[in-house]
């Protein structure tokens, strides 16, 4: 047989063995069959949850100057362009002249109020005062509807309209969301920041959880675990491993935070000492020497929200959620590591751990749209999703007891799961040649009398 064909034969044999040994595994078959079911179920569940949890937005349009409304005979006000406000299931408008108080809005069943005056025609900006922030989708609808209505108004006022003039009249209203109680801006910037944090949380929990799993597998496959266990209790070894690797993650978080702070500090110093700041100050019509880096940031629509974030709380909470979330998921990863003898065997067992993690990630992405929705709030309490979901809510401002309760539930679950994982770990880690059955796992967790001295 010629050399290339021999090489091909060897390659084919290797491929065949790799393929056949894996597809023959029961776990592979189960995962293959259950995977699509889970995915379809997941998507269907998410759709249903979204439908059922997005709260309807009821807008009070306070049209001071009667730009967009006309009175009716019964003293009510109706829009001059009714078709500009298409009927939607989750968005309702009511029109009037007067500005309502928080209490009046609440009593009238409104979730927010848009204030319009003649200035909006020129500035194309209006305030949206909310009791609860509307979803991004609802906010976009309101912006579009009002833009159409004002465009109509402008066109009506022009008798000789050509195309260029029409383009000039096109209106794009942008709403600035403010909390009616605090007057704070809460919006997409915070949501995006929270989402970035949740993404980091997911990555960290997953990466360091995998570290735990690989560490356990290394000890088991190297057979070094027997030497270690002749000195150290299995539960000590497991807890030490989870804590040690967790500290590595925490060190990385602290390192990133410190480095970011240093970079911002140097960026701020560089900006403040540059000639650019003087020209920027003059362009803003400000007195020379009165602006600093924070002033520049505050003037940027997309970045100003960064100054409103309580970074100490945000980072402190992120660190605590990482520690607790990682410990909880680390217990699962360690259990999987103890059950297998090599990493490739762990792949099929990872599905039950990865599913809640990825589900939490999807929930977090949906929470940006509706941070106060029931789904977002509940998922920030459920321990399996709270480390990721709460990260999205935190920049928007969350009642302290929400955070405390969420952390307490997560901590209790983490302690419980690490304890249960230790019961499985101490038996499974010394088991070679056979993977524990589900029944054995249950027995070891329920009746933990077969452990070490």
């Amino acid at each position, binding site marked *: 047989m010629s050399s290339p064909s021999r090489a091909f034969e060897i390659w084919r044999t290797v491929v065949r063995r790799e393929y056949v040994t894996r597809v023959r595994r029961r776990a592979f078959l189960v995962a293959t069959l259950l995977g699509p079911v889970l995915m379809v179920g997941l998507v269907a569940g998410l759709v249903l949850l979204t439908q059922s949890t997005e709260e309807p937005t009821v807008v009070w349009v306070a049209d001071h100057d009667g730009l967009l409304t006309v009175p009716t005979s019964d003293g009510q006000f109706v829009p001059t362009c009714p078709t500009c406000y298409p009927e939607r299931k989750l968005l309702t408008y009511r029109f009037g002249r007067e500005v309502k108080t928080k209490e009046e809005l609440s009593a009238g069943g409104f979730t927010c109020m848009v204030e319009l005056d003649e200035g909006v025609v020129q500035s194309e900006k209006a305030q949206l005062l909310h009791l609860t922030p509307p979803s991004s989708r609802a906010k976009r609808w309101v912006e579009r509807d009002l833009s159409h209505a004002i465009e109509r108004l402008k066109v009506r006022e022009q008798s000789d309209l050509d195309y260029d003039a029409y383009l000039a009249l096109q209106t794009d209203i942008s709403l600035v969301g403010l909390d009616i109680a605090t007057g704070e801006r809460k919006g997409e910037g915070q949501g995006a920041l929270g989402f970035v944090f949740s993404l980091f949380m997911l990555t960290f929990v997953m990466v360091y959880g995998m570290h735990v799993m690989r560490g356990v597998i*290394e*000890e088991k*496959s*190297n*057979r*070094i675990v*027997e*030497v*270690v*266990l*002749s*000195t*150290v*209790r299995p539960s000590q070894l497991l807890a030490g491993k989870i804590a040690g690797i967790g500290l590595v993650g925490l060190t990385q978080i602290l390192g990133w935070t410190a480095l970011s702070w240093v970079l911002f500090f140097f960026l701020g110093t560089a900006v403040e000492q540059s000639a650019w700041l003087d020209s920027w100050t003059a362009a803003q019509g400000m007195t020379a020497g009165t602006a600093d880096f924070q002033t520049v940031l505050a003037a940027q629509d997309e970045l100003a929200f960064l100054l409103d974030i309580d970074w100490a709380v945000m980072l402190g909470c992120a660190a605590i959620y990482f520690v607790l979330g990682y410990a909880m998921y680390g217990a699962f990863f360690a259990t999987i590591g103890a059950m297998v003898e090599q990493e490739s065997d762990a792949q099929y067992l990872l599905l039950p751990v990865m599913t809640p993690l990825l589900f939490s990630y999807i929930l977090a992405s949906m929470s940006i749209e509706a941070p106060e929705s029931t789904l977002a709030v509940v998922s920030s309490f459920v321990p399996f999703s709270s480390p990721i979901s709460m990260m999205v809510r935190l920049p928007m401002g969350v009642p302290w007891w929400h955070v405390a309760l969420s952390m307490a539930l997560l901590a209790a679950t983490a302690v419980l799961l690490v304890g249960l994982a230790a019961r499985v770990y101490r038996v499974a880690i*010394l088991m070679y040649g056979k993977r524990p059955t589900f029944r054995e796992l249950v027995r070891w967790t329920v009746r933990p009398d*077969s*452990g*070490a*001295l």
Partner: protein
Amino acid sequence: MTPVLHTQGVCKSFGDHVALAPLDAEVQEGRIVGLLGPNGAGKTTLLRMVTGITKPDQGELRMWGQPHHRDLLSRMGYLPEERGLYKSMRVAEQVLYFATLRGMARSDAERELKAWFERLEVEGWWNREVADLSKGMAQKIQFIATVLHRPELLILDEPFSGLDPINAGLVRNEMLRLVKDHGTTLLLSTHDMGSVEALCDEVILLHRGKKVLSGATDAVREDARKGRIRVAVQGNLMAFVAELGARAELLSKHTRAESSDVHDLELALPEGWAMPEFLAWAVQHVRVLEARPLRLSMEEVFVQTVESATP
């Protein structure tokens, strides 16, 4: 003297499988005891109970006269048969890790480690990666990790596997030095019967979870002889065998090629007919050139005992 290890009715099962039936055994201080048995005999189960990795289901396990507890584990050193090292650690760092796990001060451990590196001729490997070690070198490092904290009871499971004869001799000498100079007790689990003959004062033989033989190595070998002797006789073999009749069992006969009337015989003497009485009778019929008790090797004792214990 209080035994280092004393078990009474200690047993262990995994589901329906009895790994170790109730076992009574003792290991005295300063002795080298061989723990023998075929694969699956229960040796590793017993060692895991002694080293605290698992608990007995029933029975009493006493160490140094006390009920077994975790504080006693630091007085032991355990080298399991299936052993490894952390590949991502350096050699000295790894051994020091185990020493400090067993309660040794790092400075003491470092000092001891330097001495052990010289004794086992692994100087220069202090900062090497474990991944660079050959199998034999890794075995020596694992042995050092087991003895560095000066354990009073040393439990070694196949300590010579993977070692060439020179390094095996090096390790064997160190084991004997520990016993002689420090009074270390050694529990040696091995299938290498040559090592058992050379090293062990006593043996415990397990088979299918049960103790089937125990005692001083010499006494065990003597008992296993069962009256067997080897003699060289000169004379008429047919007549001699006829005279012998049922007095003793003739196990084998071999006539020497160089001399047709000289025969090597293997006989099993019955109880109560010792070699002196046999010789006094034999010289009346043939000329006895040579006579000696048949000395069984430990391997023969092992095979004979296991076979007779297997239904």
